[in-house]
């Protein structure tokens, strides 16, 4: 158990190291990315550019630059952005985190409840018209590009129907902190939550229904039903319980990835300055320090979520201890 955990930890470190090296190399392979000229500014003389290159250590060999940057990111924590000069990247990431957490957490509540409802109801009335209807709706949810759905939501709530009673409450795009304006926070996030959750409600509902249907074939359920337990009880106490294992696994992984920045399309469409947005603008600006910080942060959550799910598995399902 302990060795397994340590092995996991070493693997995590390896993966994060690999990613940071990859990002670093991608950056230096990109044309027009010479940070010295961009930092020096427009119409700068060659002497000024050379000076900036020297100051920032861009003349050193790549491995040395990588080492220096990692040291400044983790040890000194004073790594500064190339684009917004003087801006420390670590506080930037820390500042963006609550935005992403608010978005993902709210959406997660919606999609877990929605996914459960869709899956359970559809499985309970399996084969009926309601079941088919729910499954088609779920598939439509899965089939919509999230950025497009977000735009349509914006079009409806911000422009077309904004002046009607239905959506006049929707505030302008952007994030309001929970601590200072909880009600505003809620109102600005409702639409993004729904947008992000729709895809996952579709996926989770479908997976749960499939698992429930499968569970109904298993012996112990048949026994329970034969014993004359109420259908409600069979569903909630027995079938749902076994079917929830893959549900929880999926949730762990999805939550980790989204917190790590994969909600970026939603964040971009709704103007939420979360981790995804931060990573995206950093990538567009070729702001290497910011890219490194955000990508390592993202990788951390992905790897962590994987590890947590693996460990959970060991507890939930003894068979997995072998693998």
């Amino acid at each position, binding site marked *: 158990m302990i060795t397994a955990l340590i092995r996991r930890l070493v693997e995590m470190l390896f993966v994060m190291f690999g990613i940071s090296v990859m990002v670093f190399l991608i950056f230096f392979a990109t044309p027009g990315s010479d940070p010295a*000229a961009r930092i020096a500014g427009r119409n700068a003389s*060659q002497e*000024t550019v050379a000076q900036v290159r020297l100051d920032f250590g861009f003349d050193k060999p790549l491995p040395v630059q990588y080492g220096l940057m990692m040291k400044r990111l983790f040890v000194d924590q004073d790594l500064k952005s190339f684009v*917004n000069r003087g801006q420390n990247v670590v506080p930037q990431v820390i500042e963006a985190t609550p935005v992403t957490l608010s978005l993902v957490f709210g959406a997660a509540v919606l999609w877990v409840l929605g996914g459960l409802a869709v899956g359970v109801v559809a499985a309970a009335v399996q084969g009926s018209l309601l079941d088919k209807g729910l499954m088609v709706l779920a598939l439509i949810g899965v089939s919509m590009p999230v950025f497009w759905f977000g735009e349509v939501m914006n079009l409806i709530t911000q422009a077309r129907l904004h002046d009607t009673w239905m959506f006049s409450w929707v505030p302008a795009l952007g994030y309001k902190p929970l601590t200072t304006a909880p009600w505003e926070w809620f109102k600005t996030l409702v639409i993004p939550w729904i947008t992000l959750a729709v895809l996952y409600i579709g996926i989770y509902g479908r997976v749960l229904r499939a698992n429930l249907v499968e569970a109904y074939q298993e012996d112990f359920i048949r026994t329970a039903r034969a014993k004359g337990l109420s259908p409600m009880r069979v569903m909630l106490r027995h079938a749902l319980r076994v079917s929830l294992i893959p549900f929880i696994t999926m949730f762990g992984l999805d939550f980790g990835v989204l917190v790590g920045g994969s909600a970026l399309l939603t964040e971009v469409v709704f103007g939420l300055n979360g981790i995804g947005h931060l990573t995206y603008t950093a990538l567009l600006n070729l702001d290497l320090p910011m890219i490194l910080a955000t990508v390592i942060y993202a990788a951390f959550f992905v790897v962590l979520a994987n590890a947590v799910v693996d460990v959970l598995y060991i507890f939930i399902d003894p068979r997995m201890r072998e693998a």
Partner: protein
Amino acid sequence: MSSRSLRLGTTALAGLILASTGAASAADRAADMAAHRGGTMRLVASAAGGTIDPMINYTSQYWQIYQSIYDGLLAFKHTSGAAAFEIVPDLAEALPVASNDGKTLTFKLRQGIKFSNGQPLTTKDVVASFERIFKVSSPTSGTFYAGIVGADACLKAPADCSLKEGVIGDEATGTVTINLVAADPEFFFKLAVPHAVILPADAPAKDVGTEPIAGTGAYKVAAYDPNTQLKLVRNPEFKEWSVDAQPDGFVDEVHYDFGLTEEAGITAIQNGQADWLFDPPPADRLTELGSKYQNQVHINKLMAYWYAPMNTNLAPFNDVRVRQALNYAIDRDAIVGLFGGTALADPTCQILPPSFPGYKPFCSYTADPGEAWSAPDLDKAKELVKASGTAGQKVTIITEDTAVSKAIGTYLQSVLTDLGYEAAVKPISTNIQFTYIQNTNNNVQLSISQWYQDYPAASDFLNVLLSCASFTPGSDASINISGYCNKDLDAKMQAALKLANTDQAAANAEWSKIDAAFMAEAPVAPLFNPKRVDFVSARLGGYTFSSSFQWLFANAWVK
């Protein structure tokens, strides 16, 4: 100055709407002050403008703000329209006395001015500030200020920069003497831009990033976080000494919020939650602003032009006929439409913008050559391409990743296809496009760029953009994007610069000829001169648009 994500644009001329109101008398101003002083103004922008260090920041977004935070020895007059090109003494009592054939300038400092941290302003601060320009490797240190005696050594070894021969302070008399290597008719302008502001002598000799430095202006920076807000409050030490150079402000506080999209910014102003938006309004909102909100919209001409630099060292644009052909073929009206219509831009086929020093209207690349562009001449363009024998070659257009730049690139691609080329458009991130197109290693054939004036002198367009000295192969800092080096015209530009020392008018006449001579060789295809749209809240009054630094927020009120 170039424009970054449309954030860098500076300057304009002749406020169309409020051109005449700038001449408000002192009495009017006192009455306005009594009636409207106080309150908090809320400005919004989609993103912050980077470092708050006034000697390093080179964005019009913050140059506009610095006007009321920092002072140089001289300043552009804080007033509306072209009068804002006038240089007035700011921290200096009067314009300097020139001696030694214009190579020595002597300034007398005003007495009793204090920085916002309480320290009094002395000649020591002035000397230290000029050295700091080099110590922090200010972007213009090697271009604007290289003419100060001792600057060459400072550029080589910034850390030990000493200008003891170049900038000499005399504490007893409160005078500062600046020695130049050669007379420079544009030096006053260079002293009036934010890179030459006077900071306390103990300001850190490095980019301060997000830690504001004390200044002498009407406001001081209370807090700055590039992700959320720039907050300005009144400078407690400030007493108005010259309404032209550093006027007292109306509002008590300015909250400049970042991170709102343009759409959201417009909506916020419509709802009265914000007073002004830095970014240009999105194209699909323009019609609404122009009709429903026309009293809150101010449109002003910018001293700038959008152009397509053609790489004169790469096929097919190494053939002058091809460059001329593209100039003939472009329908500049169509491009004006892409920018938002005739109310927002004027087509042009020359380098200098209208009403700029040395501007003389002409257009040879049009169906009916004369003073103005009328229609494209596609037949002539096709003839020229045929004569050059380059049809069928591949051309790639590098544009910025903004809606307008991409749209213009797509249009040019269409034009080049009509001319018989195999054309492609490649939009790249706005933040790297500007340096990417400059580097000859990237083999860029054709690109879209903009140039906004730093100060009102023809050389700021012609000499900066097209001199041989501005072309450095293999460097990301090579602002002569066309890579066009014409020794003959270079000599003429040097002569015009010299001539300006003695006869500005004659020099300007020379610049007009140089403008035309360049266009005959067509290293660039000028497209249009843009205008600035300011959409302000209903409560905002006292809107003043300076040709030098755009809207002057200190002159506006919200009560």
